[in-house]
């Protein structure tokens, strides 16, 4: 479903701010697979998702989604294949527009937007039912500006919007990190429900070991712009939070070793 081969991305190349955010990532994700992406801050998780979504073009490598080579597609064109929820609850919705209008926008993802009415009974009726099933009491507020809702409510709605038309690929980037624990749990439960029900191919970034072991069928761990570990199948089923923490410790030790080695070399030669 998603094939990423040898992608590289360097921000601000040739300046003192140069960051090699992706240094050759190869990844194949089968249809219906739910992949958790772990990694320390700055390891390139968001950059990977942004590269797939087309927020920028990669320097090298190839990206295929649903059998189509999308490497040169602009972001809005790739959106016909991708549903996305961002970390910031403000990013996924148009605040001054109503809940219903936000869903009208989502209902045309990947389609031509013409001069027919955005709000039709064909949209609002199923919308009311779907939103009622969230049990957030929002079904009677479809005409309220979405900006008046809480972050948790907005993330739940953004998730429904991203999956209103079944996407070939769902990208979730720490989409519960900005929420209070209770709302975060609600949104995670909802995400898992939707993903299981529609068998969505999903990449989900998180910092929660708990989520990494209890959700999904595969975990990849990124480090310095590369995929360092890829845990799947029976190994993923057996995975415990401690195992993941051990792997993080190992990364940390290696990092320190690198640093002390660099310091030693610096002392010797500079």
């Amino acid at each position, binding site marked *: 479903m998603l094939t990423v081969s040898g992608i590289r991305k360097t921000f601000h190349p040739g300046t003192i701010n140069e960051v090699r955010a992706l240094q050759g990532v190869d990844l194949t994700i089968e249809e219906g697979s739910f992949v958790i992406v772990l990694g320390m801050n700055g390891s390139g998780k968001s950059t990977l998702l942004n590269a797939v979504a087309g927020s920028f073009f990669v320097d090298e490598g190839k990206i295929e989604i649903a059998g189509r080579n999308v490497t040169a597609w602009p972001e809005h064109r790739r959106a016909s294949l991708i549903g996305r929820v961002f970390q910031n609850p403000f990013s996924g919705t148009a605040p001054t527009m109503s809940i219903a209008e936000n869903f009208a926008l*989502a209902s045309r993802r990947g389609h031509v937007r013409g001069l027919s009415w955005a709000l039709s009974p064909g949209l609002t009726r199923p919308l009311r039912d779907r939103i009622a099933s969230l049990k957030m009491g929002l079904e009677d507020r479809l005409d309220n500006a979405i900006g008046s809702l809480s972050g948790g409510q907005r993330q739940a709605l953004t998730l429904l919007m991203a999956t209103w038309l079944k996407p070939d690929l769902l990208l979730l980037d720490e989409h519960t990190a900005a929420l209070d624990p209770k709302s975060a749990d609600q949104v995670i439960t909802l995400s898992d429900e939707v993903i299981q029900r529609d068998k969505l191919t999903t990449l989900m970034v998180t910092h929660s070991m708990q989520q990494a072991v209890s959700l999904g069928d595969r975990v990849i761990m990124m480090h310095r712009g590369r995929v360092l570990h890829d845990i799947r199948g029976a190994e993923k089923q057996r995975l415990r939070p401690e195992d993941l923490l051990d792997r993080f410790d190992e990364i940390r030790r290696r990092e320190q070793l690198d640093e002390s080695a660099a310091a030693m070399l610096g002392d010797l030669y500079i």
Partner: protein
Amino acid sequence: MTLLLGALIIGLILSLLALGVLVSFRIFSMPDITTDGSITLGASIAAVLLVNEVNPALATLAGALGGAAAGAVTGIIHTKFKINSLLSGILVMTALYSVNLHVMGRSNVPLLGSSTLATRSEEFGRSLFGGESVGFFGWSVSSADAAMLLLSLIFVPIAGMALYAFFRTHLGTSMRATGDNPQMVRALGANVERNIILGLALSNGLVALSGALLAQYQGFADAQMGIGMIVWGLASVIIGEALTGTRSLGLTIIGTIMGSVLFRLLVAIALRWGLNPNDLKLITALFVFAALVFPGFLERLKRRRPTVS
């Protein structure tokens, strides 16, 4: 009375300009100074065609389309060449000054003796009211002015409703969202750049339509007529927001039309009371400045609390 009637008519004609400014400034959050050039472009295209005896409705439409093209150029400079939106507008406005002079061939085109929408409505007025003047709440006004007012009162609300309807379609909704949250619009598969180009074309099309009608009402097109018109539009939008609030799109559109008419009336009254016409633009600019600063200023006063840090 004739003075008030004239102010009402011009207020209604300029409300189309105000609606154009509403689209660029409020919906896309881009103060677009192309406005100053495109109102003149609409007026000059229409005037030259009218002098050459083109059908007035067609001439007016051509003027509007000219403005739409100018807006699209600003949009293309801004989105494709990544030039700051204000600067893009300044470039096009400056270029339009020459374009307008070329279109007109000189700096002023009088419409004396041409058949225009204004002369047509005069004829219509004479046949409707059966004479040169008509009683109007006890005043006697020229039937030409009365007919012009009647037609503006019909046409402007229709234009407002058409704009409202457009912004409720799938395309219009995605254009409104573009001003609200471009990142989200991109993630939902709409082309943000195309929406901005379309939006500025729509905005300047309305502005140029306003210019084409104004030229016919006042009987001439002039290379200088656009100076400061964006600020006029902003003032109308701001007054409109004070009148109706911004809770819904429909109210905002109604407010903008009312704001334009009210502003024009206030200006007519002030001029009547002896305001120096040379000070008009200074006062308009000060008014918009105050309207933009005061809400934020009041907010800050409210938020300032005597706390120790």
